[in-house]
């Protein structure tokens, strides 16, 4: 077996090569860092300010205010911040005003002033010392205020973050009838606080990091220590650290960088804009990833059935929640296969259709010049165009589109004999059904696959549909999200977790967290939680009734 040896050799070579690569990488990164941040600060204030000016390209929103401090020989200090990122009120009140009011301090040099300012003067909660450029720019650009003192190679950074941001509004994509009305905003701090307010537990841990070589976006990983599986947190950390992108503008950037498999249309990471949903998922052992600048928070690992569940399912009665979930499963199948089944039944399996019904369809189809598949395709594409246009279009012209859509598609095309009324009905039902799926990425992925199903139906009828369906199942069964099988707990079937899938058992009976996701601490509640009426009202204790009267 000569090939065996070959392979062996090549491996060795690869190894050597890899080592070399790693070495060069290390060197690269060293160089980068030295270029980006010019090492420690200078002792001279003027030199420091020059560097700042140069680095920021004299951008007008970088404000630098020079002050004189000290009763002895006055020392010059400078306060620098970025306009708009800071709360100017607190900069003015707690920094500038405090420093100016303490004009008479007796100090000899920069170092002492630094200490004095840090300990006695600044009336702000969170301050820290910085001594290198990288840190300095980072804190300044994230909304902190920098105090530089002539003669000191250290600076103070005070947290004055603030500025204009959107207030907390109602969620716009994941609505519920019952449940919290809050949704996330673009500010990461606000978002984390929203979850903190729900889970008042020190075990709610947060790991911050900055991602995006240029944008330096704040990204935080949140989980509940003691519920989450350590391997999953470790995996999330590893995948986040592997991201080498210049920018993170939205959660989608990270989602696409950390998913297990790319050859799929299905979302393998969940995203939400509801704090209660994040809290609920953290309690099931998932990990949340907050990204600054977007109201969407990522949740991993995600399983298939999760995309058909809403937070409301847990707030309302379990029987009703179960019924709604069944309805969603039905809509899933309709939106996946509705037009495909219609096409297959009317072009391959007419024997299945009851005679009277077949005659009605046949009478309608008689004038239509296209094959059923083309007819369905025309209608589906038209619908997708309408949907897409509806999202992008200015709100003011909204009604126009619906009128044009309803008239053109609904009536004119039928009257002109281009499409049959039955097809319009099928496409409309499918369209409505696809919007009944609570998760948008799931719905859109189903819509895409629907075209594949239509193609299969048009070429092989039900045989094609069933084959496509089996392929879809196999594909879904092969997916994983952070190592967790995508179709769990349906398959591999986990009886303990089957109570929260298509069914939703009542809370007093929902004992376990998802086993594959959270390992430690699997039991959610105490025993015997089933509510019961007071004993006196029971038939067996009828005697008591007389006493009361």
């Amino acid at each position, binding site marked *: 077996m000569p090939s065996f040896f070959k392979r062996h050799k090549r491996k060795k070579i690869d190894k050597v090569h890899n080592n070399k690569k790693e070495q060069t990488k290390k060197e690269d990164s060293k160089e980068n860092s030295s270029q980006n941040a010019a090492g420690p600060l200078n002792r001279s204030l003027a030199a420091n300010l020059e560097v700042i000016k140069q680095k920021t390209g004299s951008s007008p929103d970088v404000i630098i205010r020079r002050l004189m401090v000290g009763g002895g020989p006055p020392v010059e200090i400078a306060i620098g911040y970025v306009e708009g990122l800071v709360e100017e009120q607190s900069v003015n009140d707690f920094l500038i005003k405090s420093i100016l009011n303490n004009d008479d301090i007796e100090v000899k040099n920069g170092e002492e002033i630094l200490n004095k300012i840090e300990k006695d003067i600044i009336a702000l909660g969170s301050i820290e010392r910085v001594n290198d450029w990288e840190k300095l720019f980072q804190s300044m650009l994230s909304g902190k205020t920098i105090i530089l003192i002539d003669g000191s190679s250290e600076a103070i950074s005070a947290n004055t973050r603030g500025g204009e941001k959107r207030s907390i509004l109602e969620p716009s994509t994941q609505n519920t009838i019952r449940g919290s009305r809050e949704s996330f905003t673009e500010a990461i701090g606000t978002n984390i606080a929203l979850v903190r307010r729900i889970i008042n537990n020190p075990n709610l841990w947060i790991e911050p990091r900055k991602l995006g070589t240029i944008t330096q976006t704040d990204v935080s990983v949140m989980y509940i220590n003691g519920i989450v599986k350590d391997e999953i947190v470790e995996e999330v950390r590893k995948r986040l650290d592997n991201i080498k992108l210049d920018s993170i503008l939205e959660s989608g950037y990270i989602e696409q960088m950390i998913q297990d498999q790319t050859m799929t249309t299905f979302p393998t990471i969940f995203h939400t804009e509801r704090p209660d949903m994040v809290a609920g998922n953290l309690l099931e052992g998932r990990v949340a990833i907050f990204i600054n600048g977007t109201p969407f928070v990522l949740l991993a690992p995600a399983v298939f059935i999760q995309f058909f569940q809403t937070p409301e399912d847990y707030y309302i009665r379990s029987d009703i929640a179960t019924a709604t979930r069944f309805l969603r499963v039905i809509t899933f199948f309709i939106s996946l296969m509705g037009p495909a089944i219609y096409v297959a039944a009317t072009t391959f399996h007419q024997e299945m259709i009851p005679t009277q019904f077949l005659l009605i369809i046949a009478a309608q189809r*008689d004038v239509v010049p296209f094959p059923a598949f083309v007819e369905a395709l025309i209608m589906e594409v038209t619908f997708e165009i309408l949907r897409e246009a509806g999202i992008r279009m200015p709100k003011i012209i909204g009604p126009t589109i619906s009128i044009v859509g309803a008239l053109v598609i609904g009536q004119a095309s039928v009257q002109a004999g281009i499409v049959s009324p039955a097809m319009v009905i099928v496409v409309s039902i499918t369209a409505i059904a696809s919007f009944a799926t609570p998760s948008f990425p799931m719905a859109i992925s189903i819509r895409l696959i629907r075209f594949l199903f239509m193609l299969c139906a048009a070429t092989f009828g039900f045989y094609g549909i069933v084959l496509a369906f089996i392929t879809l199942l196999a594909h879904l069964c092969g997916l994983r999200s952070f190592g967790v099988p995508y179709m769990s707990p349906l398959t591999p079937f986990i009886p303990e977790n089957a109570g929260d899938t298509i069914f939703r058992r009542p809370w007093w009976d929902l004992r376990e967290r998802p086993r594959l996701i959270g390992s430690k601490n699997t039991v959610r509640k105490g025993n015997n939680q089933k509510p019961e009426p007071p004993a006196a009202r029971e038939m067996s204790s009828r005697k008591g009734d007389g006493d009361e009267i």
Partner: protein
Amino acid sequence: MGMRYKKILLFLLIICITTISGCWNKKELNELSIISALGIDKNEEGEYVKTFQIINPKNVAGALQGGGGGQGPAVTVYSATGKTILDSHYMGSTKISRRLYMAHTNLLVISEELAREEGIIKILDAFERDPEIRPTTTIVIAHEAKAEDIVKSLTAIDNIPADKVVKTLETSERVWGGELKVTLQGVIKKLTDSGTDPLITGVRVIGDPEKGKKIENIQASELDATLEADGLAIFKNGKLINWLHGDNARGAVWVLDKLKKTIVNLEWEGVKDVIGYQVMRQNTEVSAAIKNEQPEITVHVRAEGDIREVRNPVKLSDPDVLRKIEKLAEKEIKRQIEGSVEFAKENKTDIFGFGDEVHRSYPDAWKDFGKDWQETVFPEIKVDVKVDAFIRRTGLRNNSYLSDYENSH
């Protein structure tokens, strides 16, 4: 990179396979002629004449579409001849623009002449084998008519003539009991069983068949030609040999346990047809026994029903009178059944499946009887008919106003 190209190639291959194959089994609805009924005759040259009743969907569903359709006849009829059943089918396509589609055919009409002379055995294989034809297709015999005439007649209310015939059979099987709706599969099953022979309902055209073809026929309140179920054809060795009519037909349906509701007219104090006994529920059990090495059949009927008409004063409030009527009903039902059993015996054909019953209960003895069951054993067989009739209610009144009327006059 190589892997990626391979994947693209594979994808293209699959797309090619699927699109090239697109036309193999595809049948668009506007390329089909949906056949509702088929008629089979034989002409003078000894060829089969197959008549296709094709639905015009626009004229059936036209009313729903609002205007436009609904003007022409609901069906169009074509005939084609051929040496075999399949041959005539393919000859049909020389006349019809669309693919003949038989999956919705629910009526198969065979002419009496063909059934008598050649029998139905050789005809049915082509239908049983075809995956398009439903095994539940109803079979009827054109009584004293050509199958063609039955298929060509237009009908009112139910626009599609085939529907009308099938529904008529269904209804009359349920509420009168003189007819049977037999399916293609049912007939074949009985033909192949050695211990039973099929019964098939006859349909005839009342009036002028020529006028029945015209659309004017269904524009009048009284039709010039109409289709009517009439009698049960009895078969022997696959050939039609005789017809059961009236009470005999009903007796046969009693034994076959197909009857759901019927009216039995009873004699009262020497006057015929005085009491109308409506059977609401009935159950028939046929059992076989072997006595003195000869098979004996017991037919046990249990009927339950109401009195729905009296034409002479009868004291219906008296339980004893009701008991008496029950006895009369038993006698009458027994008479009908025995009549039809006698008729079958005369014709030497076991339409009731008594032979099957013997076969099931005495598989060993069947080996002796089975060979010439129809010819020698069945005509000699002893059939014991037991009827239990019960009267449960007498409608909204107890005694008839007739008694008051007679008292006051």
